[in-house]
């Protein structure tokens, strides 16, 4: 609960994914206004935070694909009461995990050596760039997940029904359209 407003604190997190699930969340349209009355939005990819804030519900979009995703999702888990795998990349790895068929070296080679024409070479970023993990992993392989909200992306109606169930204390329903 938020100390000032007494409302549940809702956060969204974006790991290795396309942001399509967040776009679908925005497709709640005018229902966002009602939602804003019921929850306190405390973090999103638009929020400039260094440390993830305490949250009651966190929707996590995307798979765990690099070292920064890994440390981020661990701190999110520590500070979240109900963690939700939001969309197929978080739930199964989905498109982000298709690179698991290849080695990290082969995937980087294809993009930065074979396909490059101007600057050829894998960027090193002076150790600032996060390292790709050998395998992309769904969120529940890394931290405990309380609920799964599948879909690529989950439709706005699905997200709305899910959140309303959660806020009203019911077991969330996850019926809806899947990939595509």
């Amino acid at each position, binding site marked *: 609960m938020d100390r000032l407003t007494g409302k549940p604190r809702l956060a969204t997190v974006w790991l290795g994914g396309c*942001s399509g699930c967040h776009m679908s969340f925005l497709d709640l349209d005018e229902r966002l206004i009602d939602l804003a009355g019921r929850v306190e939005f405390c973090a999103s990819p638009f929020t400039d935070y260094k440390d993830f804030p305490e949250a009651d519900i966190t929707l996590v979009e995307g798979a765990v*694909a*690099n070292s*920064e995703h890994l440390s981020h999702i661990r701190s999110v888990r520590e500070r979240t009461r109900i963690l939700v795998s939001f969309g197929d990349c978080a739930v199964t790895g989905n498109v982000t995990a*298709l690179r698991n068929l*290849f080695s990290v070296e082969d*995937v980087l080679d*294809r993009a930065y050596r074979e396909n490059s024409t101007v600057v050829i070479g894998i960027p090193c*970023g002076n150790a600032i760039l996060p390292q790709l993990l050998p395998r992309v992993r769904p969120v529940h392989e890394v931290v405990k997940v309380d609920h799964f909200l599948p879909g690529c992306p989950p439709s706005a109606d699905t997200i709305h029904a899910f959140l309303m169930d959660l806020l009203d204390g019911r077991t969330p329903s996850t019926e809806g359209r899947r990939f*595509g």
Partner: protein
Amino acid sequence: MAQRIVIHPVTRIEGHAKISIYVDDAGEVSSAQFHVTEFRGFEKICEGRPFHEMPGLMSRVCGICPVSHVLAS
């Protein structure tokens, strides 16, 4: 003293990124770098897959601008 200022996260973009700003001894900016930290390897993962999967896969390059990727695919 020369130093590096890192802006992370960059929140007003579509995607994940950091910015490094290098400041020299005189307090002037000597260089700056924009680091794109997200990489999924679409260039490789599309190899050998059925062509009819491409519109579905390519639209997942970006959830904000999927239409341009579908058309290009």
